[in-house]
């Protein structure tokens, strides 16, 4: 299987979550997905743009989608749920003629064809499939008990995302199971971690992320698996803050799902950027036999 597919790393992939970007590229390559980066891509608008101006926000995303289409890429995938949300919402809103015309005026282009967007999670589940993943696994993650955490926007709103169940998604669970992990039923898999409130209101993040860590720890997990750079940061980098704010002593490593998939497929921990994680993942990975 060799399929050319557009790739949109997003700003965090180029900065705070380089290990997500690197592991995504490596895992896709291993699975025969030829990713082609969208040429000259720019920021999707991230969190601020759509709170200020919907047209401007859509224009930022539309530019990227148009560039992809011009490069002959019908589908673009992005690992970041926030980028995914912006790119998909732009496509969704531009189905309305009036809105599309405003975006066109701003971009001074025709927006004749726009690429469709899927999360990397969706592409791996639907285009590759758990069977193909299983076939590539050389070091199964057996003995590793994980909780899959999707975050609040990966599957929501359902009419825009049109992938998996908005209240009880199973795509990441399925992929991790294909890699041999024991996936525990995590009841808070679509809860909010506090997201960008970490800057202005740290108390909100410590409360919301703390709750996620409490429940996961109560289930006896070895690790939490995420699909969102912001979720990963709140749970991993801020775990110390959460502990001191709530008087807990959690030490749960928080991986990107692509990192664990890569390790299971025999890719090295340096390729997967394991050293970039804040909470020490070594004991857990050694116990799982993938380090």
């Amino acid at each position, binding site marked *: 299987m060799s399929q050319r597919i557009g790739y949109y790393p997003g700003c965090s992939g180029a900065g705070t979550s380089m290990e997500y970007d690197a592991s995504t590229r490596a895992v896709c390559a291993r699975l025969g997905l030829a990713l082609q980066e969208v040429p000259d891509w720019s920021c999707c608008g991230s969190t601020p743009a759509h709170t200020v101006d919907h047209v401007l926000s859509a224009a930022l995303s539309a530019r990227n989608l148009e560039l992809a289409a011009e490069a002959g890429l019908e589908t673009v995938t992005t690992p970041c749920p926030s980028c995914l949300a912006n790119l998909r919402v732009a496509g969704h809103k531009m189905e309305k003629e009036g809105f599309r015309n405003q975006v066109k005026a701003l971009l001074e282009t025709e927006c004749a064809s726009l690429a469709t967007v899927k999360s990397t999670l969706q592409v791996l589940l639907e285009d590759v499939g758990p069977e193909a993943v299983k076939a590539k696994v050389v070091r199964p993650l057996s003995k590793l008990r994980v909780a899959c955490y999707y975050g609040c926007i990966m599957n929501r709103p359902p009419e825009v995302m049109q992938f998996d169940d908005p209240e*009880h998604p199973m795509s990441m669970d399925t992929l991790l199971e294909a890699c041999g992990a024991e996936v525990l039923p995590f*009841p*808070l898999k679509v809860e909010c971690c506090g997201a960008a409130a970490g800057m202005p209101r740290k108390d909100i993040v410590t409360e919301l992320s703390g709750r996620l860590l409490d429940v996961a720890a109560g289930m006896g997990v070895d690790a939490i698996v995420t699909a969102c750079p912001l979720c990963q940061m709140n749970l991993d980098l801020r775990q110390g803050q959460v502990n001191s704010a709530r008087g807990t002593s959690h030490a749960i490593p928080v991986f990107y799902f692509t990192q664990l998939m890569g390790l299971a497929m025999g890719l090295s921990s340096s390729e997967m950027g394991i050293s970039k994680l804040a909470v020490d993942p070594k004991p857990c990975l050694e116990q799982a036999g993938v380090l």
Partner: protein
Amino acid sequence: MRIGVFVCHCGSNIAATVDCPSVAQAAKLFPDVVFASDTMYACSEPGQDAIIQAIKEHRLDGVVVASCSPRMHEPTFRRALERAGLNRYMLEMANIREHVSWIGKNKELNTVKATELVRIAAAKLRLNTPLYANQFDVTKRVLVIGGGVAGIQAALDCADAGIQVIMVERDTSIGGKMAKLDKTFPTVDCSSCILGPKMVDVAQHPNITLYAASEVEEISGYVGNFDVKVRRRATYVNWDACTGCGLCMEKCPSKKSYDAFNEGVAPTAAIGISFPQAIPKKASINAEFCMKLQKGKCGVCAKICPTKCIDFEQQDTIVSEKVGAIVAATGYDLFDWTVYNQYGGGRYPDVVTSLQYERMMNASGPTAGHIKRPSDGKEPKRVVFIQCVGSRDKAVDRPYCSGFCCMYTAKQAVLTKDHIPDSDSYVFYMDIRSPGKGYDEFTRRAQEQYGVQYVRGRVSMIYPKGDVLVVRGADTLAGTQVEVEADLVVLAVGIESSKGAPHLAEKLRISYDHYGFFMEAHPKLKPVETNTAGVYLAGCCQGPKDIPTSVGQGSAAAAKVLTLFAKDKLESDPQISRVNQNRCVGCLKCTMTCPFGAVKDVKDRAGNTKAEVVETVCQGCGICTVTCPHGAIQLQHFTDNQILAEVNALCQPEMEF
């Protein structure tokens, strides 16, 4: 012909947007119209008297009434014509309310359209001929479909009046949902104690034939003379011999069968009687779980049965019955709440439905009346009730209110306190809807006397934390988020139409709504009738209802049946197709297109094939008349010439506006 035209104001319903006097004025110029007037309410007593007066004074041969839909008052005006000595079919109605005044605001254009409708009605009336109804016999037996409390009431009322009743019940026992309830609101009396005797009455009544474990297979015929085929499902037990001793269910080695009566709270044996008060009290086998039927091994029940009534070879049988009327009382099903993934979607054992909870509280239920958590069997101390699950929720396509959940939740909260005095109950609600007699007082008592905590707001999520469930919702009165830790969560699931209801509606030729509930003939004035003569409704098949309303409707349906049967002969509708034998060439295209099989082929004296309409089967739809290449078959009251006259009246070349 001398025609009279009456234009109705319908108060301001029509007159506000149609110039009625000028419509009447214009009508005076139409051919054969000798009298025209406008009137405030044509359907009122003075209105009808004025019509009768004008018929006599102006020697009218026919009447046009321009008013509301003929569905509303055509029978009224037909009766008025008869009182004046005219044939009832010498009436035409122009619908200038639903078709004009209610849908357009431009008075000038409305007046033109109203005048047009009167014009075509008058043109058609000129070709009307008197029609006379035939009479036919009535089979004074009634079919009751569904053995819940509504069906039971309808059946008993009819049977007590001396009518033969055939009751068809899908389950192996009658009793319906009410038999599963522990107590009933607001009196908190034992459900099976008040329903049980009625069930026994059904079994013992000499006028009632009960077919349990049966379904209606086919219905043909018409009011007064329906032919019904009933499929009696194989139960693998000879019910004539079974004494209901229950020995088989004790000895059956397969104990994993789904217990439908107990809502799956605990499994049961593959053979058995669904509950102790079952009527008929006969055993039946759940083939899916029977080792003998699945794998050919076992047969323990057959060996130990004292009356040798087990029959593994039993097949479905079909019985035919003739009835004159049908009462549909097929009840409801519970909404499948597992679509609510935020409430666990069926994954958390300690989240149960209201009906499961009802079985857990019932002394004859699987826990012998002790409330136990399904996960570990412990007695819960904090119970949270969540209302409106699959009710008033557009997201799951159930925007309607199920009506009785507020009450049964209050009842269950009260009973929880009775069962476990040191327990705390919480109810998450949207609004408390308790409009029945003694109902609101009951919900108040739950709060004030039993200390049930009512929290106004929807629950957004339930998640397990250790061995408790965290229920997160909003308190919209306090404007805060709330989290309650619960040992047990009870979902007040809403109702939806019974499975297969639309399928049955098609067999009965009655309408059903988007949600599968059967449609009444008029939401206010004909609540138990349907648009198909001789078919009546009772209970939740028509929409959500509590027990008193279902019983009341059961009795109402019975009253309608008895009214129908009070006549020895019924009149047929003469608005049916007739064949002009001279014109008919015997191509029989009409027999092929008739959806009711009402046209048959006959031979005339010369041996030529001709078509003939079976009067009692013809429904007057008119499909045959458009099929006939020679215009030999004509629908009385709607002949080709009458319809052409209407078209010609509307398309006059000289008409100007």
